């Protein structure tokens, strides 16, 4: 059995960790928004330079880099790749929208 005092301390710790997660989630959303803003600017720059908006080779390189960074950080590269294909999709749609 867990003593009441220990339970309170564990609950307190859990609450603190959840707040930390919430802070990280906010930062992630802000960073994704920033990435999309940059994507839009790149879209405009490409059009100004007369280049096509879609660049599969560039996307493949971005995903490769994210996978390699994930491994260095001790994460599963496959999951990071999935996340980045999704992020790229968001940016790509934002670029095309303009």
């Amino acid at each position, binding site marked *: 059995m867990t003593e009441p005092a220990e339970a309170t301390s564990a609950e307190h710790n859990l609450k603190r960790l959840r707040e930390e997660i919430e802070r990280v989630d906010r930062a992630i959303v802000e960073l994704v928004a920033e990435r999309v803003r940059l994507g839009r600017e790149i879209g405009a720059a490409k059009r100004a330079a007369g280049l096509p908006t879609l660049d599969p080779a560039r*996307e*493949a390189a971005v*995903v*490769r880099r994210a996978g*390699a960074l994930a*491994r260095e950080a001790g994460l599963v*590269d496959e999951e990071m790749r999935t996340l980045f294909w999704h992020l790229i999709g968001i940016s790509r749609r934002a670029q095309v929208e303009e």
Partner: protein
Amino acid sequence: MIIVTRPDITDAELDHIRERVEAYGLRTHISRGEARVVVGCIGDEAHLSEAALRILPGVESVTPVQKPYKLAAREFAAEPSVIRVGDRAGATLGGRELVVIAGPCSVEGREMLEETARAVRAAGAGMLRGGAFKPRTSPYAFQGLGKIALRMLAEVRARTGLPVVTEVMDTRQVELVAEHADVLQVGARNMQNFALLSEVGRVQRPILLKRGLAATVRELLMAAEYVMAQGNRDVILCERGIRTYETATRNTLDVAAIPVLKAETHLPVIVDPSHAGGRADLVAPLAFAAVAAGADGLIVEVHPCPEQAVSDGDQSLTLPAFAELMRALRPFAAAAGRTLAPGEPDAVQEAA
């Protein structure tokens, strides 16, 4: 296209191969086995050159895949898929273990659900089934208890430790069902509901996909491909009988589909002998045939009082009949090289 590499390929070599493929707008899918790593390529292969890929460091062979399904194809996986269900104490489908999923057709109440769960667990079942949303042929038939049933399933899971599988019928229910269940079932009548398949592909829950009443093996695999294309690779296929000219049985169990599927796909294959025969007395012989043919598991309808069941009473086993089925199944499981979880004779007596 499938690229098979040396098992000791480095991450950098693998990254290089994938980037070469993805630079043409395709996606790659990795499957790591003990003896090899398989890189599956998905997308328009018109610009991919087999010869150019074959000379990349680490590549052993490059093979085109002519089948319409890719992610579900046996060739795309280095080894057959083993799908883990539920928490630590959960079940694994697709390995050596033969998993038996049992429970009532519909969740009718908390007591009957818990009574059934404890009895089937005691007999060696690894998962609990129970319908919350019921696809009924008649709009006037019992349609299920919905959200109330989902809560009961989650409560009984917490009390018995049995992972729960329940059907989702509508795209609007997917998240709600995923909040309560360990495995989401797509029923036979929804096997080609592509909106629903896409939606369940987005949630990170294993999917139990039942073969449609008039669907071919290829159509079943294309339905699985739909789910997998959305990023959910945990699909369990279920043969549940197909409609033929025979009227002595409710459906005709396609036993041959089991070895055919096992050869065509890396996904686990289970069998529903209850719906296939439509009669309680056919459940055991069909279950034996399924296990002998290589099924990875069974899903069986069980009811504490079948004559009072609001749905599918004719094909439901009583609790003692289910325990007897499990006993009789053991030699068949052993002959097929499978292990079947031992029953816990005292579990029924445990305090709730």
